[in-house]
């Protein structure tokens, strides 16, 4: 099996702050991490490789500093990691991102053999749209399985998964090649072994620039190929809640009666007593 995993480097949202004046993220000094869902995607791919053999190729589109994210995937066991990077790719929205990634997956197939499975995360911590995975599937004509919580079986050219939906669980089966977007519940991400860490420290990611895609349509990439317009972004106001601290049930009862809640619920003072 040849599995391609798409990963994105994102700012660590636990340490993110927002400039309240401009409404933009303050990226300076915020550490970058691999989008957490994507690590679960990689783990799923590694487990499939352990069961069925084959290779795992990781692809990211991003700035040169995304090398660090790729090295992390190597430490966990990816066979190769490709950085798709070029100034001309910069400023991409989900449309342009999924176009370039689809082209990169085609190139990965040319380089290392036909791709059976593409795995992406459910969504990213920063862009948060969840559109890139499905966008790639459309462009490559792949079967599309989103919100995957479990890979039940891969048998021959078929894959069966469980999808977590808002109102339940769906078990679906389809043929390969397919694209999955995965949830965190799908697995527990392993910790890299020491040989993995050593391999990663030595690894030089493969770099593909625009020049490596002779057939690419340059009107569809980067800022030019991105019709999305962010008209405004702002910080939602923190909702103010009045908080009173009370000690014990009796005080709580008193405090509740002091609010307008009993009235709104249509209680009378007699009932309360």
């Amino acid at each position, binding site marked *: 099996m040849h599995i391609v995993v798409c990963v994105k480097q994102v700012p660590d949202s636990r340490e993110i702050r927002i400039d309240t004046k401009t409404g933009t993220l303050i990226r300076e000094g915020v550490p970058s991490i691999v989008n957490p869902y994507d690590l679960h995607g990689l783990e799923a791919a590694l487990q499939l490789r352990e069961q069925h053999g084959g290779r795992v190729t990781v692809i990211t589109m991003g700035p040169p500093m995304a090398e660090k994210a790729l090295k992390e995937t190597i430490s966990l066991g990816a066979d190769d990691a490709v950085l798709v990077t070029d100034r001309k790719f910069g400023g991409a929205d989900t449309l342009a991102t999924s176009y370039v990634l689809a082209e990169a997956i085609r190139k990965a197939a040319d380089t290392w053999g036909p791709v059976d499975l593409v795995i992406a995360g459910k969504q990213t911590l920063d862009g948060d749209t969840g559109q890139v995975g499905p966008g790639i599937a459309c462009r490559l004509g792949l079967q599309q399985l989103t919100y995957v919580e479990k890979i039940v079986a891969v048998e021959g050219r078929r894959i069966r998964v469980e999808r977590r939906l808002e109102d339940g669980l769906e078990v679906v089966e389809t043929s390969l090649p397919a694209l999955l977007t995965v949830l965190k519940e799908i697995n527990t991400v392993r*910790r*890299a*072994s*020491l*040989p993995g*860490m*050593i391999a990663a*420290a*030595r690894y030089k990611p493969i770099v593909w620039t625009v020049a490596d895609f002779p057939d690419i349509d340059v009107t569809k990439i980067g800022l030019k190929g991105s019709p999305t317009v962010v008209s405004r972004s702002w910080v939602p106001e923190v909702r103010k809640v009045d908080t009173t601290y009370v000690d014990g049930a009796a005080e709580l009862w008193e405090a509740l009666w002091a609010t307008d809640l009993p009235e709104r619920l249509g209680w009378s003072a007699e009932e309360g007593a």
Partner: protein
Amino acid sequence: MSERFDAIVVGAGPAGTAAALTMARGGLNVIVIERGEFPGAKNVFGGVLYRHHFEELIPEWWTRAPLERPIVEQNYWLLNGDGAVKIGHRSRRYLDGKPNNFTAMRAKFDRWFAQQAEEAGALIICETTATELLMEGDRVIGVRTDRDEGDVYAEAVIIADGANSLLTQQLRARPELSPGELSLVVKQTLALPREKIEDRFGLEKDEGATIEILGAPSQGMVGLGFLYTNKDSLSLGLGIMVDDLMATGARPYELLEAMKQHPALRKLLQGAELKEYAAHLIPEGGLRAMPKLAGPGWMICGDAAGMVNAVHREGTNLAAASGRMAGEAVVTMARSGDFTPEGFQAYARAVQASFIQRDLAKYQRLPAFLHEHKELLMGRMPEALNDCLYEWFNVDERPKTEHQRQIAQNIKGMAGGAWGLLRLASRGWRAINE
């Protein structure tokens, strides 16, 4: 599967990185095991970096490294409850041509320094903790880490894992450190705009100052406070000997908070915003607590070997110098292809011949002296000196002879008479001279 390296370094602080850099440049296959998310991530010091010993490794390093401010002024303050006796020195000579020392942040500096070793070819493996030395008989042959398939093997292991060195303990290279040989330092980084720092400390743009603080803040325990200027923050800290903390039950962070309220400090810190809080140990035992430095397959450098000169606030420079010497010894052994016990001892001899051992030998009696006279040195003396200067400057109805008689009495009184004073002076002299 497990690969063999020429050398393993445990810890990417100044000592470990200096060793790794030296060996990588010598063409050796070097791996550094560091438990932090990146080198320096959790490392804490005051702190001041000295140009000289890093310059031996990287000429002109200070023009490229992330540093805070070159220092033009250094001070000692002796505090009593509300007063301060201040002595210090300011001169542009410290800056002329090549600045002598700088304030810095370890999270930035250690990371940069480790990058230099990486560029020279050392492999730096972070988020990985060395848990044990691997032995074959009495020879160290590798290191076990907390990762799967986590054993690595090498001809030489350089132990540079800092003050609380687990691996030094495993070697039984010295008895376990006692609380009387360690101080615990708490430190706050306080954000303050550059212009305010420069105004309050009387500095030209980008220049720095340091203040070492003795007396009242340590409340009679053996301790030292400090206040240093960074680019747009202040480093404020207080260190106290661990045995004193245990005996009194005092809480270091409370002492630090109290120190911030001292009238001499309060206005300097006013409006500064707490950015970071940290605590760290300093090995203060000096030469007498120094472990055996080398044995078959291993060497110990920097804080792990207790190489701190507390009197002069030096540690990083001893660490970097010892790391370099260890690295050189390994390179020499690798050239001859012969990793004999004798080759490892060459490192210990290099340390002995250097400023490291000579400075530590000079002050080897000091820890005991401070401990023995702590009430006097940390309490009565700062008090008496404050009183003396008060007498000197205060003008009232009394004639000068009376003021000065009072001064003489204060000084004698603090040491229990003239004889006590002489004895103290002679003991003090011996404590800081071999």
